[in-house]
């Protein structure tokens, strides 16, 4: 498997603080990979570097063989990277379907002239957008709820809508930031299988940040552990679970036993 | 929720009170018997309104007639700033007109005369709206104003189109009267004449060779400042600085430092009284000991002399009127008793109103039905033809509506009041 995303010795500083420190990572195409680590370890910062929201001081980010650091976020999105946020950031006063249509922005072309004159091109595009959006709503199990304002949807539905919006960009790589945050075990199990389905049915590569070890261990093919901005371990679920460095810095002895307690 | 209702209620209460207060001021609407707390005119039950002028007489006056049915009021309109930053001058104009009507006897051939004031904010756009309002009102005899040149330009187009007589007591811009309108007059000298007198006085009487000029960046202030600059340099003097200040600020020391850096013997300020007071105060504080000179805009005892904290002593101002004109002193006393000291355009407005009323009296007649009719063109011609002796001096108009004879007087501030120093007469 070739890697779709590669980070080479990436470093991002905030003032004196090294948020991401000489971090290298390869995400295999078509995989579900996971980044874990204590709060403030630099996981979200890394995401922000990938999508172009932060400019790293050193290192390279390669997407599909091309360096992308320094590109503005909207261009990176256009290349096929989408993301979701730790604390859901939907356009809360837009309807569900509008959220998804905005998500298609990089793939639609209508100009101001088209919009004002309602050219045939524009009409066709609008129609296709709606059809596609409805398809995505169905895919995430929200069909029939397209006209509800995003903020009036229940929490779980909002999470799924955010993913649908990210998918509207037809991403090759999907970054999920703590998708199960604030969910109880039942809900997160549901989401976990959904994420799996995503990869299996659409072939989208998925990179996620996650705290819930049950989720992490269940679906990740590759786990990378960050602490203080540096990579301290990498491997599959078993290797990570038994890595003493990881237990020391992140999992803790009790949590390791907690994992077994859940009879997972 | 409780707070919100309470707030709304109190705000509404204020509105109601205000409207009630406004209600006391219905002298201008004329459709109710008014409670008359301002001294003018009595209670006239108004009966309907007569719309158009009598057809049978149309051919006699090319501009048509202003017609009043018995019992109707004649409106003398004022277009000026009545609210906002320039209201102080607008109020002064209204006061002048009010006093003129009172002195005239409050009625014309048995028809009561009232003031109708329109707020133009000293700005072009609302001035046009006011002009449309007055022009569309068949009871308006004539208009005093607008006050600012910026309003006179667009508004006079409307008045001219509707053949409404207007006299501005304040607009000094040269080209206002250059457009051939026959309905337009002004009772002030234009900038050029004021500038000529000022430059001459400074150079010849005071021997000033270097002059620093400041202005308030307004149409009026910068216009006169520019005229002064031209005349002074034409006379061989040197203008060391030409700087603008921002109206509404209070500390002009920084600009003053720049102006004084050129070490002028005198400083001229094109602008209004309030800024003038601040400037002279700060000029003296900055160590300036030369002459301070300003146009008619600063010739105000309360807002220039009194507001300068004594610094205005020894300053000069021009004014387009004869000092000590017939009855002027007595007039000023009467005005002050009623409204406080005139600010700037009270006297000019008084004269303008009186001119219109006197001319109207001469051309007005009653028709067979007892309606009062005033021919519009004849009114304008009568205004033009009749010499007039007023509180600002002897006034006589030219073809263009400018004053044929102008006296410009230089005043000096001595012991806290303006004292006449020199008067220059223009015209034949």
């Amino acid at each position: 498997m070739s890697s779709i995303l590669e980070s080479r010795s990436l470093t991002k500083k905030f003032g004196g603080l090294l948020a991401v420190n000489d971090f290298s990572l390869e995400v295999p195409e078509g995989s579900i990979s996971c980044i874990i680590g204590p709060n403030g370890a630099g996981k979200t910062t890394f995401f922000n570097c990938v999508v172009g929201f932060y400019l790293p001081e050193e290192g390279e980010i390669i997407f599909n063989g091309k360096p992308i650091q320094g590109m503005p976020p909207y261009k990176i999105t256009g290349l096929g990277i989408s993301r979701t946020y730790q604390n859901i950031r939907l356009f809360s006063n837009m309807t569900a379907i509008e959220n998804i249509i905005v998500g298609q922005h990089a793939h639609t072309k209508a100009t101001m002239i088209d919009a004002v004159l309602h050219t045939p091109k524009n009409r066709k595009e609008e129609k296709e957008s709606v059809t596609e959006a409805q398809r995505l709503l169905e895919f995430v199990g929200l069909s029939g709820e397209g006209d509800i304002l995003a903020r009036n949807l229940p929490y779980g539905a909002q999470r799924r809508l955010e993913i649908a919006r990210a998918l509207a960009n037809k991403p090759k790589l999907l970054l999920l930031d703590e998708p199960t945050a604030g969910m109880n075990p039942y809900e997160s199990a549901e989401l976990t299988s959904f994420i799996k389905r995503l990869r299996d049915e659409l072939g989208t590569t998925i990179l996620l940040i996650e705290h819930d070890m049950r989720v992490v261990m269940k679906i990740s093919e590759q786990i990378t552990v960050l602490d203080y901005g540096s990579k301290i371990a990498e491997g599959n679920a078993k290797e990570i679970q038994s890595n003493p460095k990881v237990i020391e810095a992140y999992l803790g002895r009790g949590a390791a036993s907690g994992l077994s307690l859940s009879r997972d | 929720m409780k707070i919100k209702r309470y707030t709304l209620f109190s705000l509404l209460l204020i509105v109601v009170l205000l409207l009630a207060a406004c209600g006391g001021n219905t002298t201008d609407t004329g459709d109710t018997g008014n409670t008359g707390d301002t001294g003018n005119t009595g209670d006239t039950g108004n009966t309907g309104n007569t719309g158009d002028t009598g057809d049978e007489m149309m051919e006699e006056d090319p501009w048509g007639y202003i017609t009043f049915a018995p019992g109707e009021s004649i409106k003398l309109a004022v277009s000026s700033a009545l609210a906002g930053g320039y209201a102080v001058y607008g109020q002064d104009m209204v006061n002048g007109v009010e006093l003129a009507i009172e002195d005239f006897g409050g009625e014309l051939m048995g028809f009561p005369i009232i003031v109708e004031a329109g707020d133009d904010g000293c700005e072009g756009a609302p001035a046009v709206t006011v002009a449309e309002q007055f022009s569309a009102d068949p009871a308006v005899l004539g208009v005093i104003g607008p006050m600012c040149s910026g309003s006179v330009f667009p508004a006079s187009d409307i008045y001219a189109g509707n053949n409404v007589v207007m006299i501005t007591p304040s607009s000094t811009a040269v080209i206002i009267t250059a457009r051939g309108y026959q309905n337009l007059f002004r009772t002030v000298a234009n900038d050029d004449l004021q500038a000529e007198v000022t430059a001459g006085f400074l150079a010849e009487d005071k021997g000033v060779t270097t002059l620093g000029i400041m202005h308030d960046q307004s149409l009026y202030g910068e216009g006169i400042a520019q005229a002064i600059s031209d005349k002074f340099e034409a006379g061989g003097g040197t203008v060391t600085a030409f700087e603008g200040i921002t109206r509404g600020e209070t500390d002009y020391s920084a600009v003053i430092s720049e102006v004084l850096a050129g070490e002028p013997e005198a400083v001229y300020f094109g602008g209004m009284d309030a800024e003038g007071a601040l400037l002279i105060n700060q000029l003296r504080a900055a160590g300036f000991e030369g002459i301070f000179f300003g146009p008619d805009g600063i010739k105000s005892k309360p807002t220039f002399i009194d507001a300068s904290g004594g610094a205005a002593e020894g300053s000069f101002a021009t004014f387009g009127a004869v000092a000590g004109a017939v009855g002027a002193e007595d007039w000023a006393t009467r005005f002050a008793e009623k409204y406080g000291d005139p600010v700037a355009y009270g006297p000019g407005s008084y004269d303008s109103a009186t001119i219109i009323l006197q001319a109207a009296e001469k051309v007005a007649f009653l028709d067979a039905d007892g309606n009062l009719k005033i021919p519009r063109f004849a009114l304008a011609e009568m205004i033009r033809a009749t010499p007039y002796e007023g509180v600002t001096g002897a006034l006589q108009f030219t073809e263009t509506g400018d004053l044929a004879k102008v006296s410009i007087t230089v005043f000096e501030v001595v012991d806290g009041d303006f004292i006449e120093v020199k008067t220059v007469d223009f015209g034949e």
Partner: protein
Amino acid sequence: MALLEVNDIHTYYGNIHALKGVSLSVEAGEIVSLIGANGAGKTTTLRTISGLLRPRQGSIKFKGEDLASFPAHDLVYKGISMVPEGRGVFSRLTVQENLEMGAYSRKDNIASDLERIFGIFPRLKERRKQVAGTLSGGEQQMLATGRALMSRPSLLLMDEPSMGLAPILVEGIFDTIQEINQEGTTILLVEQNALMALQVASRGYVLQTGEVVLEDTAENLRKNQMVQNAYLGIQ
């Protein structure tokens, strides 16, 4: 008499009927857990008790006194304190200033309380001069908890203290909760991590779409089939 008695409260967000008659009680000295899915009304319940929201119906009694007429800021003086969801530290204030804000309701000497909090959370002592916004998530949680304790509450409301924290910190948080409780503070705990919550609590309530559907001792709840399926992730 229970320390806190919540009786049939109904709370609305605009037209959304968020709590449909929640009743619960907390005895002095207990740890009581509220568990439930997202949107079940757990946070709304805590915000209503703390006075940030007003119920349209129902009563809340604390030490026998009806709280209906008191605004949120008065409840601190009565002895209720809350660790809000998402921690809510004042990020531009220093750690020490944050703690002092916690004692805003008190006029007496707070130096000893500061020392007590620093005893529980030595990390905070190291960082007392640091601006709270620069703390890590775990440290912020300590600060929020410590700040709530500064008012010497008799009832501490905690909203999702373990949310977004690394597993290693989660343990510590629950240890602290028990520690605080043993020192005599009653705790009403809202937790997504039902497993841990039911381990430290003595009793628990299960909320579903704004209603209490189950209440029992923690031990019984842990054994309950429905709870195991829905909230403990045990199939």
